[in-house]
């Protein structure tokens, strides 16, 4: 079970500069725990103290925003692509 996780530049200090890392888990929260076990501290930048996703962090599974698919409980399967991005302005 391998899921590709794309890391934004501002969080690459946790991944030794790697643009993407592999992880596993059948849900987004399990995946985040898994990558945090090898890249200690990254979870704390993604998830707030109350357990919810950080206000200025967006996570997409196969390009779809997880806030609309069950948030941290979003189900994952082998081959899914996860992208983490900071929230930026448009317009």
């Amino acid at each position, binding site marked *: 079970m391998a899921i590709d996780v794309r890391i934004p530049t501002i969080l690459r200090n946790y991944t030794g500069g790697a643009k993407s890392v592999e992880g596993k888990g059948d849900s987004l929260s399990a995946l985040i725990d898994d990558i945090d076990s090898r890249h200690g501290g990254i979870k704390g930048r993604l998830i707030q103290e109350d357990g919810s996703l950080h206000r200025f962090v967006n996570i997409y599974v196969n390009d779809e925003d997880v806030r609309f698919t069950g948030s941290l409980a979003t189900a994952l399967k082998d081959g899914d692509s996860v992208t983490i*991005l900071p929230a930026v302005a*448009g317009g």
Partner: protein
Amino acid sequence: MTRYDSLLDALGGTPLVGLPRLSPSEDVRLWAKLEDRNPTGSIKDRAAMYMVQAAEKDGQLRPGSTILEPTSGNTGISLAMVARLRGYRLICVMPENTSIERRQLLEMYGAEIVSSPAAGGSNQAVAVAKQLAAEHPDWVMLYQYGNAANAQAHYEGTGPEILADLPSITHFVAGLGTTGTLMGTGRFLRENVPGIQIIAAEPRYGELVYGLRNVDEGFVPELYDPSVLTSRFSVGSRDALLRTRQLVEVEGIFAGISSGAILHAALAVAHRAVEAGKRADIAFVVADAGWKYLSTGAYAGTVSDAEKALDGQLWA
């Protein structure tokens, strides 16, 4: 009625056109709302006009006032036209990685441009504009990201127009920037069409644009209310370019790159409807035409060439 007293009166009333070749079936149809048919050629004319009128009504804007606005382009161009016709000075704060056509159009309309750093994208433009506003309390920052008149333009305009043209609508798909189009149109449609799905397509740029120093520098527009949306897609430049080209090649619609991203999300929901065996009438927004993006290389050479050319640019 196609005669108007002035350009400003020709706002809205844009055509909704079917896409018979790109629609997956007779039961799942795509419809394009051609917002390039507005006075300066983009959907932002609606928000600009409403924001100026609201500021005039409440006395913020008076003859000779100076308007300040952070914008990656289209809102600035719309405001520049309105400001010129109504007699205001306009200062736009714009990220330096936006296309040359946008700068030239702004200058042509007499707007002044303050550049903000490319890294950080529009976040930096917002930060610089807020600082300028604090230093110049007499300037009026309309602030499209938090101005209710932005969404109201779509609640009163875009939404009712689409519903009148397509009473059988099941999905509305638009770009997510200030969130004004989706909030205004989405609220109107939710109030009037039971079960409607409101879908956001958000551009995903090259890495430079996300070059914030830390996560807490992130930005969510004050107008944004996620409860209006059903789902939200992030669309990368390659998919946006492929769809932009498909739109002109297959249906003859010469659209800007953000409209390609919106079409990509519209096709994703169309295919889901086909798989589920459900009927769907999907209206999506063509926010502007392709003219302002010719210099980006988006329409020339291979898609891979175009993708490289767009890296680091704000293409929506």
